[in-house]
């Protein structure tokens, strides 16, 4: 059967290999990604405006000639919603032809280069949406299926540290339940880089309930669609206890939350009109009857330029859990 198909040219008749390289000749960076399966996955890592070079090796099966209409490599940026699996939407598509129509009778190596590619969106693997980049090698054939092979890579973009705003107002807000609980919370700023530390304080202005403890959660909300079709998925990425026991009026409880241990991404807002990823600090107070009182506050996350170096390799995720 294999032979028949092979003879008909229906089987995979050619192997495709692709090696990523950097345009600037530096060693390739990689991103390590956690997967659900366990083994972390390593992908080549690029940023926008970088030049992506690839070396594509195409070879025929021994003794078989592969005739084709042409070989090309595409750089694709795709957004794929869980609801429309299999039908990703390309928001970026660049192509390089590697070979004109002809016969492949031996292994050929083609270099390819995508110079200064604009990749404004970061790669993202969310619950209901993913945004990915890949190089796709296609060997087009007339009567048989084309040979198509994808080579994914990862994109992260960095921001320079924002210029320090003089007298930048911290996030400060008074919230409460009338005659029951009044607190004022304060986070030192609204925008944090991924290795940043959230510093803040909770002032207890009125406490009439018996609190047991208080924690700060980091929550991520992924929104797809818009308007009435909008769908939200929220995950809690961190729970960080900041208070044990019941405070009295006038107490102030310090917050110092290191973001580095958690698997965070920058805030993505309205990516290609398809989705957003937002982050929230959720302050949760739990009373002795396990009732929860909470207040959620959005924070902006960004990837700081300076940690670009650190980004090469595994993020130090020394998240101590107990």
């Amino acid at each position, binding site marked *: 059967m294999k032979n028949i198909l092979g003879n008909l040219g229906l089987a995979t008749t050619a192997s495709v290999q692709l090696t990523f390289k950097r345009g600037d000749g530096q060693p390739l960076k990689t991103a390590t990604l956690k997967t659900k399966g366990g083994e972390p996955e390593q992908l080549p890592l690029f940023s926008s405006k970088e030049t992506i070079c690839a070396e594509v090796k195409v070879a025929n099966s021994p003794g078989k000639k592969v005739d084709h209409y042409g070989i090309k490599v595409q750089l694709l940026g795709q957004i794929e919603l869980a609801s429309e699996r299999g039908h990703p939407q390309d928001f970026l598509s660049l192509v390089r032809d590697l070979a004109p129509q002809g016969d492949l009778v031996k292994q050929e190596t083609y270099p390819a280069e995508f110079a200064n590619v604009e990749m404004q969106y970061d790669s993202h693997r969310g619950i209901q949406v993913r945004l990915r980049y890949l190089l796709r090698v296609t060997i087009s054939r007339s009567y048989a299926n084309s040979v198509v092979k994808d080579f994914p890579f990862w994109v992260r973009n960095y921001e320079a540290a924002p210029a320090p705003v003089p007298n930048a107002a911290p996030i400060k807000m008074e919230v409460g339940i009338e005659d029951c609980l009044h607190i004022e919370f304060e986070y030192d700023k609204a925008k944090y880089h991924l290795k940043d530390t959230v510093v803040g304080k909770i002032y207890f202005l009125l406490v009439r309930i018996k609190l047991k403890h208080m924690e700060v959660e980091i929550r991520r909300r992924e929104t797809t669609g818009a308007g009435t079709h909008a769908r939200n998925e929220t995950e809690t990425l961190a729970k960080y206890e900041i208070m044990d026991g019941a405070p009295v009026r006038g107490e102030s*409880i310090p917050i110092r939350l290191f973001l580095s241990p958690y698997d965070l991404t920058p805030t993505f807002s309205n990516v290609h009109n398809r989705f957003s990823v937002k982050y929230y600090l959720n302050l949760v107070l739990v009373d002795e009857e396990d009732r929860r009182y909470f207040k959620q506050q959005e924070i902006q996350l960004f990837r700081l330029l300076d940690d670009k170096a650190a980004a090469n390799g595994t993020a130090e995720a020394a*998240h*101590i859990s107990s």
Partner: protein
Amino acid sequence: MVAQQETVLSDEQAKWLQEAGTSVKRNAFYMKRALDDDNLREALRYSAAMLGELRTSLLTPQRYFELYMQAFNELQHLEGFFRDETKKGRSYADLYELVQHAGNVLPRLYLLCMVGACFIRGGEGAARDILKDLVEMCKGVQHPTRGLFLRSYLCQVSKGLLPDTGSEFESEEGGRIQDAVDFLLLNFTEMNKLWVRMQHQGAQRDRDRREKERQQLADLVGKNLTYLSQLEGLNFELYQGQVHPRVLEQVVGCRDDLAQQYLMQCVVQVFPDDFHLGTLSPLLAALPQLQPGVKIHVILSSLLDRLARYASVQSTVVEAFDEAGVFQKLLEAAKSVVTQQSGMQSADVTAMYIALVQFTSAVYPDRLDYINQALTACHTALAERSAQEGEGVGAEKQLVQLLSIPLDSYDVVTVLALDKYPSVMALLSPPTRKEMAVKIVDAILKTGTLVDTVQRVGMLFDFIAPLATDVEGVEAPEDDEDFEEEQNLMARLMHQLKAPTLDGQFEVLKAARDRITQGGPNRLKHTIPAIAFAALAVVRGLSAEGQQGQSKTEPVLQFIHSLTAQLAEAGGAAEMALQLFLAAAQAASDEAHLDVIAYEFFEQAFIIYEEAIPDSSSERTALASIVGALQRIRVFSPDSRASLVHKATGYSAKLLRKADQCRAVLACSHLLWQEEEAQADPPSANGDTPAPAPEPSATDDASPDDSSPAGRTSEAVQLQAPVRDAEGVMSCLKRALKIAHAAQQQTAVARRANDTEPVSLFVEILNHYIFYFEAGLPTITASVLQNLLDLVQNDMAGDSCQKDSALVAFYKNTLGHIELQRARGGPAAERYKQIKVPA
């Protein structure tokens, strides 16, 4: 029920502790294994899990402490590892961040404190900043027990790492003493807040148990103060300017009884004496602001103890005290506490003043006025309180203690100068007041203190009023025995009233008389004899000084007279009054030579005899006393004497029993026969006696004798020659014989064959005959005596007499006497030779 619950509770506790302990051990084991594998992340994970056991709310503080110690010990391993880790190039700053990734706040903070301590010790971080961060971050634990232990851990691990003066951690960067002080003060404040808050946790019914548990945690809070006091750099300025005000602000502001009680005492105990002296005013000012339930007196007394000890070690301290007006400040503070703490119990008020008085007597042994001031303040306070409450003062025990301090530390006479003392005493309930009075008298008697001025006598009686007079609220004769004892004390006390001069002494006695005569009949019985005898001693003293003159002695005798008359009037003490009159008569005669007064005394004695002697046996005794006294009196003119003798003889005949009559007559015989040599010193006129250097004043007093007012009733007289009335004696003896015969016949009539008394009477008569025989009474010849002797011998032969061994012995001795006289030789022996003594 309750006990059962407690057992169940403690069983559960043990179980919980064991479970938690097991988990600590298990996690510690994995932690150590991870450390061996050099796996920091795992080690941190397990150490956090181990410390997570401390998050329990189930354990009582004591059990929790055990668990804490377990975890504490295990943490040492991690600490060692961290030290090695930095040698490998990892910075403490990294570790400091890394441990903060722990998700739970309690384990995180324990780890942070530990790393923080290493951070400082390693010299890598600035002590000031790290300490500041730690003490702030620990606010994350608001649970009282857990927070207290956590902060106690912080305190423990940072000990020795503070930027104290002279410490290796002190520097521009690392901070100065100020930072060390700030750190400890802040930790103290936070801990105290947690500690105070504990009481509001849980159910109301568990309150007592909770307070007990809080008590157990007190030392954790106090440790901060101890460490503060141990700072090298803590000088007085810093203490005065910062530590003291901030600590007090916290203590006063927390408005918690338990905390205030403990912490105030802690402050008093841990900081040096001179600091207290320097900050005395604000410290004292804090006292009135404390909660009503705080035992302020306990705090004050420990403060005063310290100050007193301080003063006792260094002599200059007392001067410093004076400069600072310490006593006045203390007094004001006490007053202000009383005013502001209206709910303070009288017992506590008193206890506070006890402390003050103790302090004063220790530090100012010579400032009696201070003690008086303290007593005044105490009295005011208590009087107000009892007026408000409309009840007695209570606080008996404390008041007695308060009043006892001066007695123990001062001479009793000195104490008498405390004019507020009696008013404070008056606050006691009557029975206690009396006990106190007994105590005072005891003190006087024990030390032999003499009360030597009229004024002091007045004070003394104010002090011991409950013994001297009836007191409202006490039923007069409670326990007879007790009463007797008390009054015996009073009687003894009278002999402690002694002025240096006789004049003064008399004044003192008069003053005492004025007080005791208000005491009612039951007391007079005891006190009057004592004071009367004391007065007699004055008479004797005057006589010994050669001042028999009436101007001196007469008032004293009059004094005795009126006292005794009072005693007689009081009733129930007729015999005593009679004896007193007789003793006074004796003195009037022998010492003062005042016949009229002596006669008056006898007259009074006779009146009592006639009117008040209740029964025949008392009569007999009383008569014997009268006769005895009269026999010796030498001051009477023959007429006066004759009438008294006549009276006495008359009484003797009126006695009921023949035997009594007989004996009385025998006694009366002696009234007619005074011994020549009875008076050793030759009787002479007053002026002739060479007075042994009389004092000028005495002479002055003596000189106006002649010009004394006409009202004088008596003059000093010469003693009379001894009376020797042989005829009279004989008639007495004969009457005695007659009565004895009558008695014998009575016995026969009554068929009392065994009654030997009549014979005994004869033997007694025989003895008198022998006496007068020897005295040379002319009418008693040998033959008269022989006749009597034969008569007695005859009677004695009776069976019943021979059985009466006492009588036989009496008779034998009588005969023996004759034999002895005969054998002795001399003129008497010659006369005895004529007597034939029966074999």
